[in-house]
């Protein structure tokens, strides 16, 4: 039993202005605390302080990033808005994909919890993003994960990787959502701060879109799903222990949440039935900041108020204080606004799914969020001051003093070994680089079949899911970011992240239409990091305009540091594309013998920041590759037309690792080899062999074309002004990749170069070659 405790009510707070609350321990600054006092006209109660502290945190309020993020909205053109049904600001953006279907998708970080407790941190990352998708009224149809870890051979990486992967596997598999792709990247800049960015995608009919706006005085505020427990509270325990003294309760509550995917699976089905029966006016998931966030955002977005009886919250642990209940980040909970006359039917549905449900209170029209506890009012605030009007900082920015020297330190002035034997050795080093390895060890642990709509998944360029079984309408999704490029030039790095994910989607034959972004950076209190962040937002916002794709939502994760050193700027961009029939998708590997292999785009001397520079010279310096957005757009249109007309039999984009990596992946996808010649490419583009194989020039795609379609395909390229050059033929008989004037690689050797590093570092690959 909990001992009765003194309640810090609004009345008590007004009468005791001298009481000092431990706001600094909750991350609230002196000036922010003063601002709260100004807003309330008195000191906050401990419950109010709990709410403001979490809602005004960097994580929830975007107080350091907001001034920069505005660019995404300000730069958006009418053309970018044309398919956008719901933009930034809601739980997730929604895009019209045609035929009456809408798709919602979003990528979000769960970085810090995943370092402390990799399994639960990653698992709840998946759970949280999936609830964002449900909140929009959609059925979730897939997940992806963009992962960044420390050096592959560091002992702590062997702790973090298996934990994160099994957490994602456990949660995603138990939810019955196919995991269709993502990325894995190793770099010591993430050693003490891995990045776990999870993406979820869902579909709904246009008329089923739901928003998190509490409207209609008298409507009921209903909390349903898992019971509220003491997990994910972290700092809030300070309020209880320091203000009110120790009474045998745990002095500190765990900061990391604990996930139960079964509860979430049942919650998904329950929500979908509630939507189908039209029993919900508005809905919001409970993630960061729990009930504090859900109540204040619902009321603020709806321009209303709310009265909530906190005693009605169903608890797992009855020793929780009011402040802890307000801040608890227990998973698998949702808050709905329900018309009183529909409440009974609502409860029938939650009863059918055996989902715990409690009616907490009512929507009001007085613009106040009032929360009562044990008969006393402990919160009485304007919800907008909590959820919307949080502090906005114009933090100092400064171009890093080291950047000029770094950019001047190009690898291009070093001598390159273009002898056959030398190139063979370089190929082996590059292909076995940790960041070019097959993800099989990871994706083997993910279910990519469930729901029966997976048209493409890793190792294809993008994941692709069928949306409509009748027409074959589908969506393709790819995530990308290269922290090395970001470190060399944060603005260009962000543009490159978009260019690559855009091209990955285009390589499947889909047309890219929208993006979600997860911006991972160091501490905003470091002016150099703030400058990197601002540069990246500008780069990404401008690139979005150039490629005509809007940002639909996403998140910002700051304070990602390994010790005092910020991570490499890592703007993960997830691009979503539409394909009118997934049967027309372009495979990423070769299938048949004797088809011509064409390289689209041109290759320049762009080895700075490349995998080759790292693998051969352990070098990071110079300027990242250039991007030509008009070319990227034309290339995407060409691939879409070619897919539509059935002119190409496969397409695979070139990115990190350059041509050699794409050739290897295209061979290994279906175990079909090729004979390649580089002489014409080298002559046309004026480059040496090393550059031809390892340069990371953008705007390039490798395609295979059946001989009978050769003329038509070349005509298509000429008509669209895309440089095209035949660089080889597929060879299904020799089982080898034969590069003229360089050498021959048996496909089994390529396979071992491409697949060995992860099993060596993290344990055997179950089932061997998958």
């Amino acid at each position, binding site marked *: 039993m909990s001992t009765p405790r003194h309640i810090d009510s609004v009345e008590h707070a007004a009468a005791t202005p001298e009481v000092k609350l431990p706001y600094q321990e909750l991350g609230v600054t002196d000036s922010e605390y003063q601002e709260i006092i100004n807003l309330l006209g008195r000191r906050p109660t401990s419950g109010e302080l709990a709410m403001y502290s979490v809602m005004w945190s960097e994580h929830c309020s975007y107080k350091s990033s907001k001034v920069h993020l505005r660019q995404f909205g300000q730069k958006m053109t009418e053309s970018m808005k044309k398919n956008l049904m719901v933009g930034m600001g809601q739980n997730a953006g929604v895009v019209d994909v045609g035929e009456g279907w809408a798709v919602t998708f979003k990528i979000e970080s769960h970085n810090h919890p995943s370092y402390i407790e990799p399994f639960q941190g990653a698992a709840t990352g998946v759970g949280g993003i999936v609830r964002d998708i449900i909140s929009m009224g959609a059925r979730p149809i897939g997940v992806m994960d963009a992962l960044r870890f420390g050096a592959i051979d560091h002992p702590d990486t062997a702790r973090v990787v298996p934990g994160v992967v*099994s957490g994602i*596997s*456990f949660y995603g*598999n*138990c*939810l*019955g959502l196919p995991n269709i792709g993502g990325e894995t990247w190793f770099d010591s800049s993430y050693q003490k701060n891995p990045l776990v960015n999870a993406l979820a995608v869902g579909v709904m009919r246009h008329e089923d879109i739901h928003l998190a706006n509490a409207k209609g005085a008298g409507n009921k505020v209903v909390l349903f799903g898992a019971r509220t427990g003491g997990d994910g509270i972290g700092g809030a325990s300070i309020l209880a222990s320091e203000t009110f003294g120790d009474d045998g309760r745990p002095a500190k509550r765990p900061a990391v949440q604990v996930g*139960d*995917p*079964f*509860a979430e*699976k*049942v919650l998904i*089905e329950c929500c979908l039935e509630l939507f189908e029966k039209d029993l919900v006016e508005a809905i919001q998931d409970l993630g960061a900041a729990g009930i504090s966030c859900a109540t204040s955002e619902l009321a603020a977005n709806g321009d209303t108020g709310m009265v909530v009886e906190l005693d009605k919250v169903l608890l797992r642990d009855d020793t929780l204080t009011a402040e802890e209940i307000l801040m608890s980040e227990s998973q698998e909970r949702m808050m709905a606004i329900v018309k009183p006359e529909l409440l009974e039917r609502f409860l029938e549905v939650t009863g059918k*799914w*055996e989902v715990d449900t409690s009616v907490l209170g009512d929507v009001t029209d007085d613009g106040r969020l009032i929360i009562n506890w044990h008969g006393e009012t402990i919160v009485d605030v304007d919800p907008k001051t909590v959820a919307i009007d949080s502090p906005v900082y114009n933090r100092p920015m400064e171009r890093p003093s080291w950047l000029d020297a770094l950019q001047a330190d190009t690898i291009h002035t070093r001598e390159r070994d273009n002898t056959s034997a030398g190139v063979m050795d370089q190929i082996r080093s590059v292909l076995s680089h940790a960041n070019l390895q097959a993800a099989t060890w990871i*994706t*083997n*642990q*993910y*279910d*990519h*079949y*469930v*729901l*029966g*709509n*997976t*048209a*493409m998944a890793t190792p294809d360029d993008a994941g692709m899911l*069928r949306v409509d*079984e009748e027409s074959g309408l589908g969506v393709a999704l790819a995530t990308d970011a290269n922290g090395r490029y970001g470190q060399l030039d944060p603005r260009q790095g962000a543009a490159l992240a978009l260019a690559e994910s855009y091209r990955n989607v285009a390589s499947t034959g889909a047309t890219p239409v929208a993006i979600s972004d997860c911006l991972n950076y160091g501490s905003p209190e470091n002016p150099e990091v703030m400058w990197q962040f601002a540069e990246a937002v500008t780069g990404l916002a401008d690139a979005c305009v150039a490629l005509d794709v809007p940002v639909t939502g996403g998140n910002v994760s700051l304070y990602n540091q390994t010790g005092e050193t910020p991570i490499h700027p890592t703007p993960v961009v997830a691009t979503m594309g539409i394909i009118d029939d*997934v*049967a027309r998708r372009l*495979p990423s*590997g070769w*299938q048949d013998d004797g088809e011509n292999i064409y390289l689209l785009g041109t290759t320049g001397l762009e080895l700075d920041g490349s995998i080759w520079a790292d693998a051969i010279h352990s070098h990071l310096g110079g300027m990242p590759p250039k991007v030509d957005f008009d070319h990227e757009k034309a290339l995407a249109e060409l691939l879409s037309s070619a897919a539509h007309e059935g002119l190409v039999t496969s397409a695979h984009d070139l990115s990190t690792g350059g041509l050699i990596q794409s050739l290897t992946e295209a061979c290994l*996808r*279906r175990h079909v080899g090729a004979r390649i010649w580089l002489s014409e490419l080298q002559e046309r583009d004026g480059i040496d062999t090393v550059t031809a194989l390892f340069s990371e020039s953008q705007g390039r795609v490798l395609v295979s074309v059946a001989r009978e379609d050769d003329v038509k395909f070349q005509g298509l390229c000429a008509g669209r002004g895309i440089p095209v050059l035949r660089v080889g033929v597929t060879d299904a008989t020799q089982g080898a990749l034969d590069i003229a004037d360089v050498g021959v690689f048996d496909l089994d050797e390529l396979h071992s170069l491409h697949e060995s590093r992860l099993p060596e570092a993290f344990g*055997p690959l*179950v*089932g*061997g070659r*998958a």
Partner: protein
Amino acid sequence: MRVGVVTFPGSLDDRDALRAVRLAGHEPVALWHQEHDLHSVDAIVLPGGFSYGDYLRCGAIAARSPIMADIIDAAGKGVPVLGICNGFQILMEAGLLPGGLIGNDHGQFICRDQELVVENTDTRWTAGFQDNQHIVIPLKNGEGGYIADEETLKRVEGEGLVTFRYVGINPNGSLHDIAGLRNESGTVVGLMPHPEHAVEEGFGPDTDQAMRNGTDGLTFFTSLALEGVLR
């Protein structure tokens, strides 16, 4: 035929099983775990997933759900029942098939395109295969290791109850490479791999001909229509 697919809380592949039934030309019927009503179906599929969260042993709680009493009854009267993955676990927990399933020997969840040999075509769910036909269907599980005591193993082998065996790779440490079993009469069949994920070109396992083109799983469902095949 009318083919029922049971949804338990935590069922994941129920929609896939309903689609497979439809693609095989049957009428799919959704069944709910709390009902004592089989809606006069002619055959029943227990789909994959994590019924009731698999909080106890996998399938143990589902085996005691209201609808399972009716299914055990119907199976006794010869109604064909197919248990896939979690459904296989449920059939064992319900005593309809012998043995048990434990965590994979390597300790990981595994999802892969798995080769199997169909060792017994005297069942309502495999009659459409050739004897000893090799097929590829997806496998995805965390607890798929087949175990049984010596005597039971001797019986399932001796009586020809082993219906599917893993080929090439044993992905979970199953004894005797056992991937699936039938009952004595060939009406009840259970297996760990997922035939319902290999029923439609473009969405199944890779084949030599094209990517994701495998439809070996469809034969499980079309076999149902082959009346009178049981010896």
